């Protein structure tokens, strides 16, 4: 029975109050699936107070979309943990702070490994431009997807990516949910379930400076060139 609860939790809509804090998912000692609602993670289920200098797109904006991202320029990225397989094939984790604290970091997300736009355009673009981006002071370039670490590693090999871009797994979609960028394709026959919308963001010391969020999996301004122009 616990499995079905866990399973339905994985497909629960973003408005659920059960937000899985990163710590509960990656406990070094305990492997129970106990939920802990930390005050930190609860924050993202309530409307954020308006900050005086932040331009925010309200959810009733004139755009055709009814989804608004939780995160915006000027916000600090929520803490979360990603996983990946190292060269020895061991499962390793890294956190948002590891990636962004005291650094200039680009995080870009794709709906799915082994799907065309992601494989043919989005990731290769960042790989090609990685040297130029790093010359402009970017410390970290990471690609995030709601796929498991094994699949991300295989995809990385398939795309022949070396160390230019990190391919990280947001396996349970925790980070994606925390920043409000889920793409729910569960009712579509494509067979992808809940994934991430495509986006590219630049964060300085963990604070979002640029956030280019696409509609679903569209690819209009979340590429490497688009970010390079802004640096």
């Amino acid at each position: 029975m616990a499995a079905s609860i866990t399973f339905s939790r994985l497909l629960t809509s973003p408005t659920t109050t059960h937000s899985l804090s990163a710590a509960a998912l990656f406990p070094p000692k305990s492997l129970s699936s106990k939920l802990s609602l930390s005050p930190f993670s609860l924050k993202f289920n309530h409307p954020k107070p308006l900050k005086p200098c932040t331009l925010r797109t309200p959810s009733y904006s004139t755009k055709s979309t009814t989804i608004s991202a939780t995160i915006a320029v000027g916000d600090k990225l929520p803490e979360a943990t990603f996983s990946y397989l190292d060269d020895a094939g061991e499962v390793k984790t890294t956190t948002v702070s590891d990636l962004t604290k005291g650094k200039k970091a680009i995080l870009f997300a794709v709906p799915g490994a082994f799907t065309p736009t992601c494989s043919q355009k989005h990731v290769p673009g960042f790989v090609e431009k990685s040297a130029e981006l790093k010359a402009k002071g970017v410390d970290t370039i990471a690609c995030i997807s709601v796929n498991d670490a094994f699949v991300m590693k295989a995809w990385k090999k398939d795309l022949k990516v070396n160390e230019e871009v990190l391919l990280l797994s947001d396996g349970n979609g925790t980070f994606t949910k925390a920043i409000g960028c889920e793409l729910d394709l569960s009712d579509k026959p494509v067979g992808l379930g809940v994934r991430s919308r495509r986006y590219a963001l630049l964060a300085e010391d963990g604070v979002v400076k640029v956030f280019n969020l696409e509609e679903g999996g569209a690819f209009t301004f979340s590429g490497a060139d688009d970010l390079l122009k802004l640096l």
Partner: protein
Amino acid sequence: MALLMAKRAAASSSSSAMKSVSAAAAIWMRSYAKVAVGTDIVSAAPNVSLQKARTWDEGVSSKFSTTPLNHIFKDKKVVIFGLPGAYTGVCSNKHVPGYKENIDKFKAKGIDSVICVAVNDPYTMNAWAEKLEANNAIEFYGDFDGSFHKSLDLVVDLSGALLGTRSQRWSAYVVDGKVKALNVEEAPSDVKVSGADTILGQI
């Protein structure tokens, strides 16, 4: 008690990914599946479809069609095996190869299809099948939302190993939708009863 043992096991386990998988599964002590010998697999999972492994382009041209279970099982002799995840160690190195290597023996025994299924999307399954060069011998299907495995009560919670809800490691021999033999591993990291050799002996 099981939880405590599993915690101890987890704490002392090596950093190997599959060990953490078995530790996670140890907490999940399943003792039976909803499916058993004699079950009609299509009735046990009504309205469930699987997605044949394919590239995105093939998906587009087929309008992302899904395959209902009775298309897979009706009037056919099928050997089907499920595993926790594409690209994971035991699945890639031990489970699939056995079936691939023995495909001629399966065909000689009148098996129409040998099918591999996992809770992965069909694009990942396709890329994995190509990598294993097993696409010609074995038919790969994705149970992307786990509905097939959930209906048969063959799921295991591998969130502790960062995989989420996945399939148990299992194999079955199904004739015209009726389960004739069913083998489910105690721990998903083992291939003790769900390998090709075992089920060959059960046909």
